[in-house]
């Protein structure tokens, strides 16, 4: 198991269909849809790594992963 400081929200823009679930249901409002229509992190410090975005992403395009992961 990785500790919290080794983890971050990761996004695969190729799989993101821009539905907005992650943005709308993020409890700390740290995500946004960018001008390409894809999810993007706008406030990394504000992210509490709760995983709501990952759970509600229908496209497996956003998740909590290790900072060092590919």
């Amino acid at each position, binding site marked *: 198991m990785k500790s919290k400081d080794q983890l971050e929200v*990761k996004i*695969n823009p*190729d*799989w993101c*269909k*821009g*539905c*907005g*679930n992650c*943005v*709308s*249901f993020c409890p700390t409002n740290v995500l946004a849809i960018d001008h390409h229509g894809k999810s993007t992190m706008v406030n990394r410090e504000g992210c509490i790594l709760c995983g709501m975005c*990952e*759970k*509600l*992403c*229908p*496209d*497996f*395009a956003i*998740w*909590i*992963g290790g900072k060092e*992961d*590919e």
Partner: protein
Amino acid sequence: MTSEIVQKYFRIENLPHIWCPGCSNGVVTRALTVAIDELGLDQDNIVVVSGIGCSSRAPGYLDFNTLHTTHGRGLAFATGIKLANPKLDVILIAGDGDVSAIGGNHLIHAARRNIDITTIVFNNNIYGMTGGQYSPTTPTDAKGTTAPHGNIDKPFDIAQLATAAGATYASRTTAYHVNQMVKYFKDAITNKGFSMVEVASICPTYYGRKNKSGSGVQMMQTLKNDFIDRMAYDKLPEEKKAGKHLMGVFKNITLPEYTAEYQRVIEALQGGESNE
């Protein structure tokens, strides 16, 4: 690139999937893999069966023994597999039309037999794959491409239907309530008998557009707001009950399981004739 759970349980080479933006099928399918992971089941021993429809394309993305059958017949195929090899963990993924219209007969009889199959219903209240026709769970007055003047049918309550037919585990949650969904999936898979988890889902493309339900996000918000646990519902004052939908566990009992009972028959016969 994607999460470890998706890498482990999905066929990455087949992703991204065919489902529309905002469709909740991906949410539910991923939650199923989380439940399987948390249960520590052997990936080689899991069989996921489906019929025809949007949700029935899920097995193609899942890295198990997967079977995409004919419309409505998933449970009948699954029954054959489970009876032939009861050691397998058999899970059916079905849509509301697949499991309660064309496959309704198989649903009630699989439940009646209490065969150890977990049925997960992606209930989006519409036929999505064919373009938005009303299904047996489309609410009265809602619109579909074959109900342009409003649906005059009364909808099925699929979880209660399974309960009445003899399922030993039946529950309902929504595509929004992911933690509860994972728990229900685990309980359903663990139950030795016929289990049903109905997941209230969303189809923004067809149901949403036809019924002015808003975006996928708004439809998820509606799931969050409108579904209430059946125990909590009972305690609500009457004026607050309107428009609420029930979720929660409807049935969770233990009864003899079909393939185990069949095994007893085999053992009795073979034990009785061991001298032959």
